[in-house]
């Protein structure tokens, strides 16, 4: 019995120490990136390249998913709001639910898979093939060459993609609502405006920005700290996607509490 207790204590201690070590390494990496920001001539062109790559590469999937999401939201709203509820509420519901929640969260989760997996795999491969060691051996900072551009590209492009997603989803919701129920353009537009507050757009952008930070930082951390060859790259990649997705949902909850319910 006492040996079981000891095993549990040992395991708990090990997990705690590992978690603290990971927090320390993550903090160290963020500090390193802070120092890397001084090398503007190194990270600026790479950031623009990265931003172009992830922006152009992700646009189609973001628009596709957001148009489906908008359409489904409108159809489900139409299904639920029968009876005495005014039809223009469909416009309110579609717009608010997309801008406040679906747009940023869906895009965040998609890009956690698309960009997060890519960054973790790229950096993990660079780690196990000694490319990161090579950069350090040349007296260069991996932070300014590899990490800062990726994180900044996320912070720059993901909010823009969320804006595109919001617009596309509302537009497709509008079209779907018109096709499936007796709602006019005026009804939908009135509904969209009646509960709208300018802060809603800011809230969407703040969420997008936080999710972008999570995607960039976590995927870079997981990739950068990869160990043990190809298997390690696989573990980092899946770990980056899973961790980022969970953190996005956690941030979603925290931001809703902090920004909407204070």
């Amino acid at each position, binding site marked *: 019995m006492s040996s079981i207790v000891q095993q549990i204590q040992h395991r708990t201690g090990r997990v705690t120490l590992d978690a603290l070590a990971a927090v320390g390494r993550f903090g160290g990496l963020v500090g390193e990136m802070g*120092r890397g920001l001084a090398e503007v*001539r190194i990270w600026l062109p790479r950031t623009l390249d990265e931003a172009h790559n992830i922006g152009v590469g992700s646009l189609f999937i973001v628009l596709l998913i957001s148009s489906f999401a908008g359409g489904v939201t409108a159809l489900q709203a139409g299904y639920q709001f029968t009876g005495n509820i005014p039809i223009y509420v469909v416009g309110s519901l579609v717009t608010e639910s997309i801008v406040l929640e679906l747009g940023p969260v869906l895009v965040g989760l998609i890009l956690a898979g698309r960009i997060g997996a890519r960054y973790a795999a*790229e950096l993990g491969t*660079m780690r196990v*093939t*000694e*490319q990161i*060691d*090579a*950069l*350090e*051996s*040349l*007296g*260069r*900072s991996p932070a300014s060459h590899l990490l800062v551009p990726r994180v900044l590209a996320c912070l720059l492009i993901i909010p823009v993609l969320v804006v595109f997603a919001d617009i596309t989803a509302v537009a497709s919701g509008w079209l779907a609502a018109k096709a499936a129920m007796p709602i006019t353009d005026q009804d939908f537009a009135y509904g969209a405006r009646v509960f709208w507050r300018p802060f809603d757009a800011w809230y969407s952008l703040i969420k997008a920005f936080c999710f972008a930070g999570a995607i960039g930082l976590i995927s870079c951390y997981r990739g950068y700290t990869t160990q043990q060859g190809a298997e390690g790259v696989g573990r980092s990649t899946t770990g980056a996607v899973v961790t980022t997705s969970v953190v996005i949902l956690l941030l979603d909850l925290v931001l809703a509490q902090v920004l909407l319910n204070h």
Partner: protein
Amino acid sequence: MITIRDVAKRFGAQVVLDGVDLDVEEGETLALLGPSGTGKSVLLKTIIGLIRPDRGDIVVDGLSVPTLSRKALAGLRRKIGYVFQNGALFDSDDVFENIRLGLTDPDQFNDAAFAQERAAECLRLVNLAPETLQKMPSELSGGMRKRVGIARAIAGRPKYVLYDEPTSGLDPVNSDIIDGLIRRLNDELGVTGIMVTHDVRGAFRTADRIALLTGGKVIAQGTPAEFRASEDPQVRAFLERDFASASI
């Protein structure tokens, strides 16, 4: 000059280096021989500060590597070129960008004309055609990748070059080219080199001195002639195995 004193390193329960002592004089090429898994590459990485030893000291040009600040270490690394076992070329950049990253002086790095000229010059030094500059690493053979790795390591005119298994996985012809190149860099540019290798014949052809690392320690060192004449059973066993396989 590089001075290594009582350097020890372990990974988990595995002791890799266990009190290594070694001196590398300026202008010489030292070949570090030893069986696989004896910590030769780890030792090379401790010299450049990529791995921190658990114990001991490594002094390069009067600077104690394990105690250097981040900035001082980056400064020291600019004096040391490192040739990685598989080239470690940045696979998203072409050969020119790879070699350009070896230009450790920021002014030279940012001078496009100079960088182009220096990259072509480095390629010439490693017997590669200037057209190689535009190729991606994935378009290069194993031998070419190693040579581009050497070109990148020497682009910043380092005082020291550390070679990690420069001829492993290469055919004899390419191995000879690389060995000749290391010798030439030493003779013509006065580069001090440490070459980690399994290739005993290549080491004898290329190095001014040879050291044998086994069991986490340097157990023998000397000129190729002294090494060949050594009566140490471990040295004999290592040499005879290689020369015996060479004569088959």
